[in-house]
């Protein structure tokens, strides 16, 4: 697949503080989720690949062109920053129209483009209000409108769902997915796993400035097979169940939550554990209310991989 964003040995530090280190990636069309805790280097990575910051080492190209201070490449890129920053004495409509004008659209085209973008994020009724009167969620949606107003080929979104209400989260996620359907490239950074999970299964895990793992969530899931798994079982006779599990080699740790009658097991062999658990439930008629595995979502993957 054609490379859209390509980085080679990308490193960036701020004085003595490491931002990102030795990141080599080849991102093609589709939605790429950039995942990591606060301070992991996600925003730094986005700032370097969007040309706001220079890398100390390595190179970055978007659609085969260098990025820093190369304004020609920005025609094809839409960027939604993490900051809650605006020209607040303008109306939402004026702001987005200005962005469209900077992309070379005539006044009438810019008005039309701005209207479409503002409509997409549901702010048409508020377009003539001053930005300083917008709520946080509205401002966030306005930033997204600014990023998509010129219909970019590459969309970079830094924590795009921050402060947005649940209803609009769903709609914004759909807008992002629609971009994928158009064959565009979307790079979304977030530290909230369910947000990324709702958009894509193609993820890059960043931790301490380095790419920790990348690929399809299922591939990453396979990577952690050698890591211990947590499984929580809510059961009336949780202590009896624990007694029957604890002498097995593949059980590494057992914890109790008396108030909710929950048993949490740590195992390094999920298959053997579940085989045994099924057998015990049937043989001893344990009344199991719930079995949950934190590993079933990205949080589990992420926590294990970064060793938390």
């Amino acid at each position, binding site marked *: 697949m054609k490379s859209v964003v390509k980085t080679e040995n990308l490193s960036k530090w701020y004085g003595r503080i490491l*931002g990102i280190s030795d990141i080599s990636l080849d991102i093609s069309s589709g939605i790429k989720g950039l995942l990591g805790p*606060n301070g992991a280097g996600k925003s*730094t990575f986005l700032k370097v690949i969007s040309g706001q910051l220079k890398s100390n080492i390595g190179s970055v190209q978007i659609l085969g062109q260098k990025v820093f*201070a190369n*304004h020609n490449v920005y025609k094809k*890129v839409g960027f939604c920053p993490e900051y809650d920053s*605006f020209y607040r004495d303008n109306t939402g409509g004026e702001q987005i129209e200005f962005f469209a004008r900077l992309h070379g659209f005539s006044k009438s085209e810019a008005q039309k483009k701005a209207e479409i973008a503002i409509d997409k994020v549901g702010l048409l009724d508020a377009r003539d209000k001053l930005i300083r009167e917008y709520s946080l969620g509205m401002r966030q949606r306005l930033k997204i409108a600014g990023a998509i107003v010129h219909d970019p080929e590459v969309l970079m979104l830094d924590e795009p769902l921050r402060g947005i209400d649940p209803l609009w989260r769903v709609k914004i996620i759909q807008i992002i997915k629609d971009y994928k359907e158009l064959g565009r490239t979307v790079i979304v950074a977030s530290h909230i796993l369910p947000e990324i999970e709702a958009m894509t299964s193609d993820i890059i895990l960043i931790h301490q400035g380095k790419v920790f793992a990348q690929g399809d969530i299922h591939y990453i899931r396979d990577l952690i097979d050698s890591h211990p798994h947590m499984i929580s079982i809510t059961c009336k006779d949780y202590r009896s169940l624990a007694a029957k599990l604890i002498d097995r080699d593949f059980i590494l740790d057992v914890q109790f939550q008396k108030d909710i009658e929950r048993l949490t097991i740590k195992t390094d062999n999920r298959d053997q554990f579940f085989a045994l658990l099924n057998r015990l439930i049937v043989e001893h008629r344990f009344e199991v209310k719930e079995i949950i595995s934190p590993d079933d979502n990205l949080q589990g993957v992420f926590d294990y991989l970064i060793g938390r």
Partner: protein
Amino acid sequence: MGLIASIKEIFSFFFKQGIKSKKAKVFFVLSMIPVVILLIAKIIELTNPDSFISASQIFNRVMVVIYIQLMIPILALFFGSMIINEEVENKTLIYLTTAPIPRPGILIGKFLAYVLLSAIIINLGLLFAFLVVNMDNLMEFAYIKSFFNFLGSGLLALLAYSGFFALASAVIKRSMIFGLLFIFGWESVVQYLPGTTQKFTIMHYVKSILPATSENVKFLVFRLQPSGNVESIVILLLITIVAMGVASYAFLNKEYILTDTD
């Protein structure tokens, strides 16, 4: 988008922003204070012809000093430094530097917008001051010529100072402090030094082109060993062009870290 088109877009947006801003309104009110003082002086002069000082003398001796020597450098410092600083502080620079426009277009567009804004503020003050002082002699050619000379000198001063402070804001983090030290330190002292040393100040060239021939303005040009008019105009324009050229180069190549980054 080309350089000229980007300058036009940026100029248009930031000029409108500037006009609406509270800062511009505050500076406009401040620029009107001398007008009020002159109005009072003129009323006293008209009602009491024997008063020891006329409004015209106050205008020449004090008000010009306030406008030319104080308000212009401060306005230029404020708006010149704001060109980049406000974008960095408000974290809005990102919207401009990720737009498909040449970076120098951002700098020059904002520079021109703020110079025009400053010129309007200063020149309105000067115009009202002139009208008040000369309300009984409005059509006298010498006064009108002198007024336009002040306007022209003020505009050249604004260009040179704004360019200089735009350059400072492009390369120095605390450009406002640097600017204050420059205005109230270097410029305030060195312009009064004898010989060629005073030529290392911007104010030297501004004062050299002021209509300073009248006896009343001697106060303003104390210790001035003026350069020629043409030389002064060329040097003020050169300061503007070189400062904006270097500032554009710096802005083109410099990265601005907006905050502690993730």
